């Protein structure tokens, strides 16, 4: 596809060696001298006012250095999502959290924290805190909490609610005339989904180690965006951003959206305790805390009404979502906004009406998870399209060939569809799954029924213009000719610490081995938004390309001045600056100083002039003249739509309700592939997360007590290697004009459409038009579907 030297190559990940040796450092591996350990007391009730809290016995325990409650902790209102640093002018910022409050709003809400010499002492101290609660009514289901006669879960912040228990603004997306669209249709299908909340289940729980030096705070933590956290901490603790350093150490054990912004309350509790105890404090969430008290994907209800003409032309799409916000807003409106805008953009439909909002309940707060609201709408719209296809006697693949949005089409997204290989992706996916066997499988009517389904989707490559999203990068050429790139990305497992280096090497045309990336550290990188929203390669990469252009211009100008020519007479190839016409222009004296002997040098002879000079020679000569090349790159106001499709081949046991995935295929349009290993890894991992979402992952609550049933990892049904089906990861490349070397987002997309494909495959296998679907499709749910439709 291209003649790139670094881009598109299966370059080994730069962190691979450290990671296989067990030497890679995560936040849990940070140990500071005199460091204390924190434990948190959490609410046992889903909604209550704290009548009294007595910490005297805990404070008296030897080894306890600080005990904090709402009474003695800074009480700034904030929002733990990146929203606090991302909300654009004119948008509503809902700040409804404090580090500790005198009202608890879900089982697991933070009540008090202790810092002690050891983990054991901190644990013992927590048990010595006496709390008396006045219980308040609580709600598990958003359909209950939104009723007018219920108690308001944030009664003191009614000005931030657009309706009773509805924080922030609803999303309303309209196009054309929806009633006219249905009137013009020959067929109308309707479907509603009830979707369980699920967990990111990143392997490293939320973690932070905070330390103080005079008026400066340093915090190592597991966030996905260090610069955003620095802004949040400055707001919460009223300390200048310039006095706060936030860094990953540098590795983060997965993210999947769970720490876009603060890592739950890990950073704020570690810092509050460190300030109180005047010692470094480490706070690591237990897995139970991760399960009950760190953010989930939104569960809730999504319904779709779809109209089409007999020939399959779609005429109208009406969609509604009511999501469970849980106890605090966090990402708030952006989730139901994404749900709506993405899934009204998949198909060419002239008349659209979407209305969506999220409702406070007394469950674990819902926040961001890979896909960010998109999957909940994606499964619903794609299901409706399959129902319509069946009603009209059209193959679902054909239905999508006819209706899927393509390059240049108008859609509801606020950035143009500048590239799409979706059509090619669908053809490749259909071939790999053997879609032609679908009709044949469908004839089997025994105990085990086989079927196939598909789903398509789009997404974003960053937050613009939904939220603030701009990015910066510095490139410095050191005196030895090595290239230092600094940008505030976090590598949460995606491999961006390698792919961004590949982009820098390609943009400067230097060997990859000369490029070094500094990232995930506020003290050495410019401001930016880090790794979320499928933006790392797209936004950090674009900023790096801009910085490379800037530094390249400086290098060429300087070299040209030494050679007495114009910079347009020079080019850089493989880290060597040379005259395009091979004329000998560089005077011998600039090659004189020879240190850094392991670097590349021009072989010199008797001639007085030479046609090329290496990066090392030029950078070192510049250094001897008291000059350094430093490039700055900034990017804003850009986005691009990735496209993708999923295909599932399933067997359903009619007696047990058990689903077996015979094969699963994900095909992606990610623009240019920067690193095939990283791309395939993202697709495989995302596909399996989507498969888990479809088949078994769920968080459930005891309706009488509000307690989470799932509080150990063994109770959560994420797939193991045993449950992993045959999966194929494919891509169809096309350059995206706005992306770095044509790349666009990928991080989230692989886990968005698997549920759609699997639900459609199961309905196909069962030959049913179920209009009331529950996700996940556990054996019991499938048996109910069979019974209901028989």
């Amino acid at each position, binding site marked *: 596809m291209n003649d790139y030297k670094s881009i598109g190559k*299966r370059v*080994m*990940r730069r*962190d*691979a*060696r*450290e*990671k*296989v*040796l*067990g*030497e*890679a*450092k*995560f936040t*849990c*591996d940070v140990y500071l001298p005199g460091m204390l350990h924190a434990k948190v007391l959490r609410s046992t009730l889903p909604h209550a006012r704290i009548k009294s809290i007595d910490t005297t016995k805990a404070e008296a325990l030897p080894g306890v250095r600080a005990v904090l409650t709402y009474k003695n902790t800074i009480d700034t209102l904030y929002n733990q999502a990146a929203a606090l640093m991302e909300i654009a002018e004119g948008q509503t910022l809902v700040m409804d959290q404090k580090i500790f409050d005198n009202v608890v709003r879900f089982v697991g809400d933070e009540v008090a924290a202790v810092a002690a010499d050891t983990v054991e002492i901190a644990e013992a101290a927590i048990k010595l805190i006496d709390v008396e609660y006045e219980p308040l009514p609580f709600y598990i289901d958003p359909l209950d909490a939104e009723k007018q006669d219920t108690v308001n879960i944030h009664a003191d912040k009614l000005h931030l609610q657009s309706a009773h228990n509805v924080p922030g603004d609803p999303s309303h997306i309209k196009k054309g005339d929806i009633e006219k669209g249905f009137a013009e249709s020959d067929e109308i299908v309707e479907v509603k989904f009830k979707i369980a909340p699920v967990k*990111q*289940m*990143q*392997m*490293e*729980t939320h973690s932070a180690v905070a330390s103080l030096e005079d008026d400066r705070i340093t915090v190592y933590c597991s966030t996905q965006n260090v610069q955003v956290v620095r802004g949040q901490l400055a707001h919460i603790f009223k300390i200048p951003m310039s006095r706060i350093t936030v860094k990953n150490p540098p*590795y*983060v*054990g*997965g993210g*999947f959206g769970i720490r876009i912004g603060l890592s739950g309350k890990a950073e704020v509790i570690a810092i509050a305790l460190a300030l109180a105890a005047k010692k470094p404090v480490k706070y*690591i969430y*237990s*897995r139970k805390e991760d399960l009950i008290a760190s953010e989930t994907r939104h569960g809730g209800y999504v319904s779709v009404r779809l109209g089409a003409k007999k020939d399959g032309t779609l005429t109208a799409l009406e969609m509604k979502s009511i999501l469970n916000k849980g106890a605090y807003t966090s990402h708030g409106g952006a989730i139901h906004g994404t749900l709506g805008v993405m899934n009204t953009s998949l198909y060419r439909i002239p008349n659209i009406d979407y209305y969506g909002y999220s409702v406070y309940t007394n469950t674990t707060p819902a926040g961001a998870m890979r896909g960010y609201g998109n999957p909940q709408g994606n499964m619903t719209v794609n299901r409706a399209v399959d129902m319509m296809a069946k009603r009209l006697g059209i193959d679902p693949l054909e239905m999508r060939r006819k209706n899927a949005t393509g390059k240049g089409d108008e859609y509801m997204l606020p950035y143009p569809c500048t590239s799409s290989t979706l059509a090619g992706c669908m053809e490749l996916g259909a071939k790999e799954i053997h879609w032609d066997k679908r009709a044949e499988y469908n004839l089997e009517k025994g105990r085990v029924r086989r079927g196939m389904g598909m789903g398509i989707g789009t997404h974003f490559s960053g937050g613009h213009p939904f939220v603030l999203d701009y990015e910066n990068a510095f490139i410095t050429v050191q005196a030895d000719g090595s290239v230092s790139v600094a940008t505030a990305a976090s590598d*949460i*497992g*995606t*491999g961006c610490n390698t792919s961004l280096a590949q982009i820098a090497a390609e943009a400067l045309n230097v060997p990859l081995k000369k490029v070094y990336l500094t990232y995930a550290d506020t003290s050495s990188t410019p401001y930016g938004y880090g790794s979320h929203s499928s933006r790392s390669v797209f936004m950090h990469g674009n900023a790096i390309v801009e910085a490379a252009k800037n530094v390249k211009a400086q290098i060429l100008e300087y070299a040209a001045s030494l050679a007495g020519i114009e910079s347009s007479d020079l080019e850089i190839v493989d880290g060597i600056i040379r005259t395009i016409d091979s004329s000998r222009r560089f005077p011998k004296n600039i090659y004189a100083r020879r240190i850094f002997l392991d670097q590349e040098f021009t072989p010199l002879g008797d001639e007085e002039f030479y046609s090329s000079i290496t990066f090392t020679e030029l950078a070192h000569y510049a250094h001897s003249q008291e000059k350094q090349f430093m490039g700055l790159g900034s990017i804003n106001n850009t986005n691009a739509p990735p496209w993708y499709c999923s295909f599932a081949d399933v067997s359903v046991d009619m007696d047990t309700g058990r689903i077996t995935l015979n094969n699963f295929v994900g095909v992606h349009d990610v623009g240019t592939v920067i690193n095939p*290993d*990283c791309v*395939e*890894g993202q697709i*495989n*991992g*995302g*596909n*399996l*997360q989507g498969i888990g979402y479809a088949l078994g992952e769920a968080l459930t609550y005891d309706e009488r007590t509000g307690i989470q049933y799932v509080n*150990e*990892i*063994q109770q959560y049904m*994420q797939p*193991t*290697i*045993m449950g*992993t089906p045959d*999966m194929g*990861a494919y891509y169809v490349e096309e350059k995206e004009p706005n992306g770095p070397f044509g790349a666009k987002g990928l991080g989230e997309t692989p886990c968005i459409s698997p549920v759609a494909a699997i639900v459609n495959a199961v309905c196909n296998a069962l030959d049913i038009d179920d209009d009331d679907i529950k996700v996940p499709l556990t054996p019991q749910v499938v048996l109910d579907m069979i019974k209901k439709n028989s």
Partner: protein
Amino acid sequence: MSLKKISFFLNGEAKDVYANPGDMLVDVIRDKLGLLGTKVGCKTGGCGACTVMLDGLAVNSCMIPVGKVAGKSVVTIEGVAENNELHPIQEAMMEDGAVQCGYCTPGIIVSAKALFDENPNPDSEDIHRALEGNICRCTGYIKVEEAIVKAASNIRKEG
């Protein structure tokens, strides 16, 4: 709680530690012996991030009281590479893109080494059984399994 002197072999070296026999092995390895490659993912024996080899068997070190390892041999991720030479599974994981966030990687490598030590010719079912306790949320296990198959083949060639 009084500390007891507990002696065992750690990555081939004799070690004495003073610990409460009920302390979990993972905490002793990390906090007392300073070997940080072994990771904690759940502390309930449900994720495999803390996998070590105990007398050759892969176990969750968060479930083993250190008192139980007296006189036994423990191998952690730091003991998998010998004489500065990476184990074939480490090589294969690096080369095949099987490492992503890396938090589960040490546990996966130790489980795989325990498998190879026992059975240098594992089939797909053997691999699945050996790795079933290791949760990985990044890779979908695809490249991990490819790396194990490749490493097994390389071990057989060398052997």
